[in-house]
């Protein structure tokens, strides 16, 4: 019973009253600058030979840029928990698609047991 009410509390705390939060030009400007900077870094990094780490660095920078866009340009930082959960659910399912498919592709070469 207590578990039930606990879960109920979690689910019922979705804010029904959403505080209007206006993100100003200053924040947008800073994020814009950061995004341009990261673009320059990622292009520059691609000219340095880091063997396998070229891909890691490029994708890490892409993830940082995506997170900046999602949090600030798309206002997720200031949004309700429901919105955050929605974004997370999307990426979670995407990861499931990739990892579960990869279980096949990685182990196909291992042959029969």
């Amino acid at each position, binding site marked *: 019973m207590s578990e039930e009410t606990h879960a109920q509390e979690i689910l019922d705390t979705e804010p029904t009253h959403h505080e209007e939060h206006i993100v100003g030009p200053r924040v947008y400007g800073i994020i814009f600058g950061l995004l341009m900077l990261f673009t320059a870094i990622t292009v520059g990094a691609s000219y340095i*030979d880091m063997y396998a780490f070229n891909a890691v660095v490029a994708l890490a920078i892409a993830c940082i840029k995506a997170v900046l866009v999602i949090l600030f340009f798309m206002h997720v930082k200031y949004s309700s928990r429901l919105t955050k959960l*929605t974004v997370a659910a999307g990426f979670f399912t995407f990861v499931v698609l*990739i990892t579960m498919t990869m279980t096949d592709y990685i182990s196909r070469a291992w042959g029969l047991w």
Partner: protein
Amino acid sequence: MDSQVIATHPEEHAEHEHSPYLRHHFANLEQQRETSTFGMWLFLLTEIMFFGGLFCAYLIYRNWYYPAFVAGSHQLSIALGATNTAVLICSSFTMAMAVYSSEMRWRKALVGWLLATIVLGGVFLGIKAVEYREKWEKRHVPGLNFSAAGFTHQDPNYPEDKPLAPDMAEKTQVYFSLYFAMTGMHALHMIIGVSILIILVIRAWGGAYTQGHMTTVENFGLYWHFVDIVWIFLFPLLYLISRHQ
């Protein structure tokens, strides 16, 4: 009569009753706004999975046909790709400023920022068209005019690269298939976005989004930023990560 048996609920938001933007089935404007934003996010969720299938295919084939993917990506121009990335980030910034202008109820600023976004979107598509034409001239379009001949001998721009064996050279088709599928789907989203933007500008000029009802602009902004994010991943995957192998 039956419905009155349930305890009745006094209308708390009577003052919103006459807002011209409030549709009948919402209790108040705030609920309406949150609802449509949440709906937009769910739509973007479907978009993640839509592109997700392509990213998944890219990952698998890159592991399978690594030399072909490396050789294929050397045929792309980093300069054009980087320019396009910068253009798209600028357009995301102008779109964010458009949303801000709408919140501030500045009609002319809103129209200006939206126009800037359209121009930048157009520039992106223009550069993309230049790249596509180059691919066509190099005979790199799978199915239509593909020829793997360019990959079986030494590329003067990449002196360290060894020429590919004929069967691996054929596999560059998979790279270019995915290149066109991914950038093509992205470009299609851009075209749809620019078309919607044109409608938004016309309506914004009439003052539609600067009188307190800005959900449409805000939701369109989410879409535009999402398309930007897709490109943020496409750029390194297609252009950058194989520079040195």
